[in-house]
């Protein structure tokens, strides 16, 4: 069973989102990290990068494949979790504590799901 914290929102491309005022924190879900298996590299964006909802925010490489993480909203990158540059495996250990990017909200969100909807979406 994948962990799906109640206080977060989710996307079909397996990102989790925490909204605090105008700041939006993005990571990948427990289900996503277990599907990826061992993560070996995370290509984090630069601070100040502007993204539209649905655009590629960053790329994760695992021993299995390379996958894109998409921006859940129109926003600007204000902070990246640079600890992941040297230790991408932290995301395997705890995908919710180890967020990837913080964005300043600049526009609307794309499609999001509640924890219950996400649980159903991944078939658990």
């Amino acid at each position: 069973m994948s962990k799906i914290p109640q206080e977060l929102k989710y996307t079909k491309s397996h990102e989790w989102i925490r909204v605090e005022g105008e700041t939006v924190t993005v990571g990948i879900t427990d289900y996503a990290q277990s599907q990826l298996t061992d993560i070996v590299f995370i290509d984090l964006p630069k601070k100040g990068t502007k993204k539209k909802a649905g655009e590629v925010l960053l790329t994760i490489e695992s021993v299995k494949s390379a996958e894109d993480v998409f921006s859940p909203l129109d926003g600007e990158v204000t902070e990246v979790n640079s600890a992941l540059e040297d230790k991408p495996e932290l995301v395997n250990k705890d995908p919710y504590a180890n967020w990837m990017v913080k964005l300043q909200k600049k526009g609307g969100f794309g499609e999001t799901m509640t924890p219950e909807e996400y649980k159903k979406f991944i078939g658990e």
Partner: protein
Amino acid sequence: MTYHQATYDEPLLSEIHSDNRYKVPEADENIINLIPEELRTDNVNLPVIAEYDVVRHFTRLSQMNYGVDLGIYPLGSCTMKFNPKFADRIASMENFSETHPLVGDDSIQGSLRVMYELQVYLSELSDMDAVTLQPLAGAHGEYTGILIIRKYHESKGELEKRREIIIPDSAHGTNPASAAMAGFDVVEIPSSPDGTVDLDALKAALSDRTAAFMITNPNTLGLFEKRITEIAEIVHKSGALLYYDGANFNAIMGITSPGLMGFDVVHFNLHKTFATPHGGGGPGSGPVGVKKFLKEFLPIPVVEKSPDGKYFLNFDLRNTIGKVSPYYGAFSTILRAWAYITYHGSDGLTENTVRAVLNTNYLVSRLGNDFKIPFGKLKKHELVLTTENTGKRALDLAKYLIDLGIHAPTVYFPLNVHEDMMIEPTETVSKRDLDQFADALISASRQDEESLKHLPVNLSVGRIDEVKAARQLKLHW
């Protein structure tokens, strides 16, 4: 069957020093005196390795390896057929192998004839009107094909508008790479629940910004796109072209063709479909075929035949995209493909296709009770199964197979099936080997998970720490 791979503690070639010494060949004083004093040296620093050490070195390495000469090699998407030895023999003939690429047309009529005939054979097999043999690999063929499409739109004054190439999510990774390399934006569309192209998604993605739609048929799941003529119609209606990734041509050759289905541009993987040695990075060959209206854009030179029966290299195509490779393509691979086609003839090629599909479906029937095989039971040249229902990881089952001396299938591709294995037996494998493979894979799924984690133990190397290898990359050369 017990299997133990040979294991040697073999040094690198550069670390081997034989006891003998090399001798620089004697040279005529008069010739030596032509070389300025300061450019001469007594020490040319040549490696000192005797023939017996070189041969033993490479023989040992080959014994620590696995290849198509050893057994089944069911690497999905790669089409690892047995490479027949007659083709090697023809490619090794001195008349071909010792020819200098800059020799005039008159002296190489035989080589030009082989190239010309291969262009004709490929045109006929694919129902296209013209073929270039220039590209040096499958992805190079894709790139060449996309450059031809770009030039076509440019010639119509539409290139500024047509910036997008549509690609399904099950495509080979080289497709989006080729499109991006040629300067296009990639638009990915999801597959429908049955694993084929989602027509509604395609219709929604097509517009006057679309330059082309790239697909392979059958697709990476081994499924034939039944609505391909309808797809061709709606793609053409939007003014875009239809590109055929020929990596899976071996599944339909002799039965149907990209030309009949409505494709405008196609690349061939000579090294896959026509059984020439590949893997480990080469050598490949990716000829491109086009419909008549695109012929003027082909790269130069193309081989043509004059009315008096003389073969010549034509560098004079009006709207050519230019040169895409030095000289005339991967000639040794071209020779082997020509030999393969000539040997089998059209009936033989068709039979190969039928057998490849039959072998795949035999494996479907052998494996279908133990593994979930999504998207229907009838496949073409390859099948994709998931190991999820067995509770085991595809990677661990692959290691079990390798440990028995059986090459593992492709794992974790395509991306739209979890814990998947992509199995392509080809036609060059006996029923005995198919049964052995199926038995081994079923037996693998019934092993205890912990014991699988320690495999392989019978090979020259044990379980590779893939995580460490990827995180702490160290390159030596």
